[in-house]
């Protein structure tokens, strides 16, 4: 249908564009501008050129934060996406009879993150924590650890909590996709002698590839957004072994009051995340058959 006036499309999208400009565009430009300044938040802003960026490149804790984020992404791709996919595969076999399982797996997604972080801090506690108490109970006190205070286990411990939360979320996504796999296709495969294993890996999994790609992208971008778990459980410690970009950003801006430097760090992070997204989009496999949504 042709609009009655050539201005109609602009009027329709105008409010959304204005809203986007106000809540995203202006802060974005403001942050970029601030990244070239030295500013504590209360003093007079001072233009310092690219000094903040130069400092960030040589900032060993900032570099460590990226490394930790990459490790966290790798861990959560397994603990969230792969486990979520496996759970979806399991519950899809039994269909509607798995309703309570699906609800149970999804419940952690609905809980407040800070509450989860505090609860798991107690589970990991050295003194009376569930895990160490269990290990003592089964006679394996030698395996007891200060899970959140040991550089070798702290990041993995947080990743496990992240997996516990989001595996149910990815399960829901994959389950929805698996439900859309044509029944006739599965029946035909069964008649040809395919096992449930074959059905899952040779038919279902390839058909939900698009969802897998979305899930991987969500997992990666979500890792860059992570904050609550890390801040509550370890505050980036011990010795920066769980420092991620966001915890370092918050520390820089709100504790050290280096707003200009923090802005530069966030600009760099934005470039990295967008760059990763572009690379991901470029290297996506194309041309395979997938489900239409």
């Amino acid at each position: 249908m042709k609009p009655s006036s050539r201005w109609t499309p602009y009027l329709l999208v105008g409010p959304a564009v204005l809203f986007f400009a106000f809540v995203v565009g202006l802060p974005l430009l403001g942050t970029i501008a601030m990244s070239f300044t030295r500013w504590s938040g209360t003093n007079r802003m001072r233009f310092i050129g690219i000094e903040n960026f130069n400092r960030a490149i040589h900032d060993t804790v900032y570099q460590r934060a990226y490394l930790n984020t990459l490790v966290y992404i790798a861990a959560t791709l397994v603990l969230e996406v792969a486990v979520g996919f496996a759970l979806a595969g399991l519950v899809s076999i039994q269909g509607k009879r798995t309703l309570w399982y699906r609800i149970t797996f999804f419940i952690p997604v609905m809980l407040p993150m800070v509450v989860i972080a505090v609860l798991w801090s107690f589970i990991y506690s050295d003194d009376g924590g569930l895990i160490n108490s269990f290990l003592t109970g089964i006679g394996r006190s030698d395996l007891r650890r200060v899970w959140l205070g040991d550089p070798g286990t702290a990041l993995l411990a947080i990743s496990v909590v992240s997996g516990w939360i989001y595996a149910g979320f990815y399960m829901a996504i994959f389950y929805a996709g698996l439900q859309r796999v044509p029944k006739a296709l599965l029946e035909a495969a069964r008649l040809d002698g395919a096992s449930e294993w074959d059905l899952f890996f040779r038919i279902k999994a390839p058909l939900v590839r698009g969802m897998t790609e979305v899930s991987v992208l969500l997992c990666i971008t979500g890792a860059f957004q992570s904050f609550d778990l890390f801040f509550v459980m370890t505050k980036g410690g011990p010795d920066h072994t769980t420092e991620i970009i966001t915890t370092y950003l918050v520390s820089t801006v709100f504790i050290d009051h280096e707003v200009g430097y923090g802005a530069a760090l966030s600009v760099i992070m934005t470039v990295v995340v967008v760059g990763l997204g572009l690379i991901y989009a470029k290297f996506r496999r194309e041309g395979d058959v997938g489900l239409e949504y």
Partner: protein
Amino acid sequence: MRRVRSFNRLTGVVAVAVASLALTACTGSGSGTPSGSTSSGPFAIRVAMGSTGEVVDGVFTKLKAAYEAKYPGRTVEIVIQENDTYETIGLNTLLTSRNAPDVYFERPGTRLSTRFDDGYAADITDAVNGPGFAGRFDSAAYSGMQIGGKTYMVPWSGDVTNVFWYNKAIFADNGLTSPTTWDEFLALCSKLKAAGITPLVDGNKDKWPVGSIASHLAERALGNDTYVATIKGDQPMNSAGMVAAFDDLKTLADNDYINKSVAALPDDQATTQFLLGKAAMLGIGSWLVSDQISQAPKLQIGYFNLPTVPGSGDQNSVLGVSTGFVVNAKSEHVSAGTDFLALMSAPEASKLFAEAGLTPMTVDPFAGVTADPNTVSLANLLSSAPTKVTPADNIDVKRADEFYGAAAAVIGGLKSPQEALDAAQKRVEALPES
């Protein structure tokens, strides 16, 4: 179709990234502006602070009523934020808001200097020398509150930031008495450990608890001037003297004299463990008294100051901080603000604060008050200290962060003192000039 889907994903990525940027951008910009009201008619003053507990917060409600009764036409708006929020983002946001506080809580020293440099500290020299404050504070109470010979802060309360608290029953059962030297302290720890008792518990998740002990050890080893110069960046952080001071921390970690969970434990949980009798000692400040009164009123506790260590510092020094209130230089009600602070410093208010568990910095903090003996004793310790040592984070926040990080790495058994301090020095050198 595929191009559209790719675009949508890319849009998602950009949106996520932009949202993260917005977090920082929304911290606010612009300079502080004066309050809109004028002093000619009825007006309100805003008094901002971080919460130090419901009882203390309640005292301010009483002061508000007293002030409004004394000065008809004036009202007081008390703005109390969660303490961490106030000290990190809260006060900055308030000061740069359109409705900035007229009076606000702050710490003397570097933080006050920053407020002064940014134009948020009014010169109240004449007022504090006037009748409203006459005889209420010793001149020493204004330490760190004066810049260029002028006064910019009214003292409020003082805290000893670190002593070693001990469980009297555990000490008595094991025939122990307060140590005076570091060697005696280590021998005491050894005896407790042999008895199957955790000698010392601390929660260093936030790095300042052990950072405070490290501050004190550094002063004892190097002397206060060198310690302060080090934290200000005028001396290297990885000097031989500092490494020696950190060796004392390493001894505690290497011999399991401190809880293994020290790096991961929050300070409040360490306090709980001590109050539950799970460790013989706890290294923390004078505020433990209020926790002990509320959580374990029957527990008998005592304290001793940091034992002496070999070094050129004052071996009788006390690690402590004072706090106070500043009148906003951009306020239109500077005089009304100082009137409120005068009321806060009056004997009646001082008594209320002491009853609430604080140690007021007035000349008679416990007059007419039945205060906890430990609180009174600590107040005397602080006021009679030949050298009052300031914790590093009250000297320079950024360098203190590296210093505390080094102490955390050593007490957590993650690095040797030399490695930890070398790393801290490298980071400090990369900091921009203040």
